[in-house]
């Protein structure tokens, strides 16, 4: 009788979980902790987000994604190849110690490099 009771409770919990998962939009962005912040930009590039957001000038969206992925303060700067700053969030502070530089050279075969500097 007790086993039957246990099975019934488990069934109810699983059914309610399945219902919630089935009707809730979710995106699983599972990044192994070992990757660290140093590989965030490379990872975003590999899934196609980095170029898409930068060349369509959706910098704020990129900033929001980084805020959700990094659990610490950061500064993001994006430069053209001539050194012109096209985007910066916040001000560069001494608290950011590790600059991570990643370069994207263009999109769809164009040559229009952007230099991304992420300071954490």
């Amino acid at each position, binding site marked *: 009788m*007790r*086993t039957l009771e246990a099975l019934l409770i488990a069934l109810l919990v699983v059914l309610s979980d399945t219902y919630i998962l089935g009707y809730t939009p979710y995106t699983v962005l599972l990044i192994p902790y070992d990757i660290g912040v140093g*590989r965030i930009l490379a990872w975003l*590039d*590999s899934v196609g987000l980095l170029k898409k957001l930068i060349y369509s000038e959706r910098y704020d969206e990129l900033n929001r994604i980084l805020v959700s992925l990094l659990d610490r303060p950061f500064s993001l700067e994006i430069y053209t190849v001539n050194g012109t700053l096209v985007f910066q969030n916040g001000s560069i502070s001494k608290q950011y110690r590790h600059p991570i*530089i990643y370069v994207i050279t263009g999109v769809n*075969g164009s040559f229009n490099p952007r230099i991304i500097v992420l300071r954490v």
Partner: protein
Amino acid sequence: MNSRSQVYLIVCIIIIILSLSLLNVFEPLYISVVEEDSVVMLYQLESIAVEALAYGSTKYVMNNTTLNQAFSQYIYNALCVLNHTGIFKGEVNNFSITCHLTIGRSYNVTYVKLYKVTYSFSSLNGTYVVHLDVLNVDRSSIYPVIKIRYYHYSSLTPNTIRTRSIEVMGGMILRDNATIFTITALSKEVIIRDDLGITTFLHID
């Protein structure tokens, strides 16, 4: 242990087992964990290689330039930028990128079967492949109907076939599934371009 505790224990075990089995449903997106940080450089090189391939293949198909010439030109420009930013940290001689092209022929159709880019940095290396196969040609109607398989592959994500969306010039296209497409060829030369800008062709004899 009383009977109530036994019930809770059984419930916990069942929930844990079912939760673990549910977790397998998710397909996590992650990059392979490698101890050395030079893995970032591999991603950087792959990113450049894909753009160089897009540039090179477009020049090759549209302008009859040799693939290697256009590819090398793009790579040279990109590496100048990388070197300028100091990303290489003095290890500029520790990398290589090469590009290969394979022309295939089946069902009296000549086509670019493979673009293969291999790159290495330090002791790590990677491969990026653009794969095209002609599976069948139906000539019974007015215009030939060609069934193709098209996908990308990267050794950085070895368990994933990277599917792409494509558009054609000189024909009409229908997508059958993730990698199989049906092209109705309206001319003898059909040019295929994917969403990354990589261009290939089919020539019907």
